[in-house]
């Protein structure tokens, strides 16, 4: 083919792509779908093998990226949980909680065994020198390095609310960018409108960073409502549900609405019996109410 013919074909392709782009803009409104799936669509999706496989692939990739964040946190050093045999000898990992939902087990041994426990001889020595390895307890890197991975996680699996919440926590506390964290959490709420974790995270952001209690209160209320709808809450949801009560009570207290704060704390104690912080805030509020009640006020003549 001659050069002018090749150029002509190339130009025609570019023109065609541009035309298709223009056409898609015109067609887009007609093809717009509603945000949620209908019951029939969900039924078909749940019974479709390709959809199930794709969903499984997405979940696995999401889990792999989560492991990647742990890898980054430990500067590339791989840690492993204790085996059943080691557990029978009383060995246990301890959990590291650096905040947010980034609680992870890294109190176990390094995957590459230390020299005295390694049966591999020269291969073990080579691996200790060629791969990231440091004996002793785990040391953490700067959590800001994890942020891109959480972003990719949420792109791949927008239903991963823990990735949204943890990334927002790191954006706020380590990158010092609470506005970006808020935008990220709002994006998460769009994809997961019934998540108590994300509503609570937004509320806490308003509460902690900007002291905007008026904006925080509706978020905590939504988190509580969303939490009540869930029959069996997982660990993250349970924590967010309890924290929503705790911070809602604190927000009311900050606004001077002690009765509402006490009611919230009391309800929180009933709903989350294991959350000791709600008990603490309940006692604090009750004490304040007692101190401020007319029966406790001291008369000028010294009588109560």
């Amino acid at each position: 083919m001659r050069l002018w013919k090749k150029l002509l074909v190339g130009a025609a392709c570019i023109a065609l792509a541009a035309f298709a782009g223009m056409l898609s803009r015109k067609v887009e409104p007609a093809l717009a779908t509603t945000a949620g799936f209908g019951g029939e669509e969900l039924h078909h999706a749940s019974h479709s093998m390709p959809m199930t496989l794709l969903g499984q692939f997405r979940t696995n990739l999401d889990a792999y990226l989560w492991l990647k964040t742990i890898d980054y946190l430990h500067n590339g050093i791989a840690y492993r949980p204790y085996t059943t045999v080691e557990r029978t000898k009383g060995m246990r990992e301890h959990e590291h909680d650096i905040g947010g939902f980034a609680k992870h087990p890294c109190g176990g041994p390094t995957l590459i065994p230390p020299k005295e426990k390694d049966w591999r001889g020269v291969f073990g020595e080579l691996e200790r020198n060629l791969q990231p390895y440091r004996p002793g307890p785990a040391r953490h890197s700067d959590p800001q390095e994890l942020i891109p991975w959480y972003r990719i996680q949420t792109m791949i699996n927008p239903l991963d609310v823990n990735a949204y919440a943890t990334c927002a926590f790191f954006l706020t506390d380590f990158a010092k960018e609470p506005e970006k964290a808020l935008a990220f959490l709002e994006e998460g709420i769009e994809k997961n409108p019934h998540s108590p974790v994300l509503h609570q995270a937004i509320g806490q952001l308003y509460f902690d960073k900007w002291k905007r209690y008026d904006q925080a209160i509706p978020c905590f209320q939504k988190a509580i409502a969303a939490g009540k709808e869930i029959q069996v809450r997982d660990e993250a949801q349970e924590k967010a549900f309890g924290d929503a009560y705790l911070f809602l009570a604190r927000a009311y207290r900050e606004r001077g609405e002690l009765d509402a704060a006490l009611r919230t704390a009391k309800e929180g104690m009933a709903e989350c019996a294991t959350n000791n912080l709600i008990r603490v805030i309940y006692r604090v509020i009750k004490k304040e109410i007692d101190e401020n009640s007319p029966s406790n006020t001291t008369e000028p003549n010294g009588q109560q």
Partner: protein
Amino acid sequence: MEAAVGFKELTIGWASLLEAIRRKDIYVMLILSGIIIAVTGIFNAFDVPELRKFMMDVSLSIINVFTVIIAVLVSARQLPYELEHRTLYPMLAKPVGRFQFLMGKFVGTMGLSSAALFMFLAVASVVFVGFGTPLGGMFFQYMYLRWVSLFLICSMTLCLSLVLTHAANVTISLLLCMGASMFTRTVIIVHDSLSPWQQKLITAAYWIFPHLDLFDVSKRVIHGWLPAPSWTLAVMTLYALIYTGIFLGLGHLRFRRLPL
């Protein structure tokens, strides 16, 4: 005499390279290099600090995977292609021995795989420097070990191509290359939980299987570790050359007896 043998092998190797260029393999490499640039280019969209590690991780992972795939695919098809298309016969009619032919093919596959690797690394280096990431000593050690691992991969795949079908060879070679790390990790974790005879068996398997995972030091580059001691590079080079010799020797034994 030695020089003449070397020349013949290089000529066969050069012919393999030309064949790859004719088959447009080189364009595939260029496209893959372009993908590396595109992937690293999207990082600006994240608008977050501390992207150095992330960028290096994605780039080096892509390089690792693509280099292994190219080395295996190129090596796996050399001998079956020659046998299938009967282009081997005119070659062997000339004063070229079967061992020289095998070595020539090995040189060709090494040349092509090395060209692909260095093309990828050149692109990655430009991107890293462009993003202000300095290339430390560990990066050059990574380059070297990755290149040395190609000796092992190419010789192993060439050897297996003489005993397995093309599809089986590609599958097993890729499994050995990609699954080496998983195998090592599993062996380390389960070793102490096994019975004594199982331990002996798994230890023997551990010592026999080629440890391609040791050649991948990308994690040290990504996480900013200091360069590894030079003796480790020397041992790894020796290790790769020993295995290359074993695989080429076994391949020659099989090729010599192959009825044509």
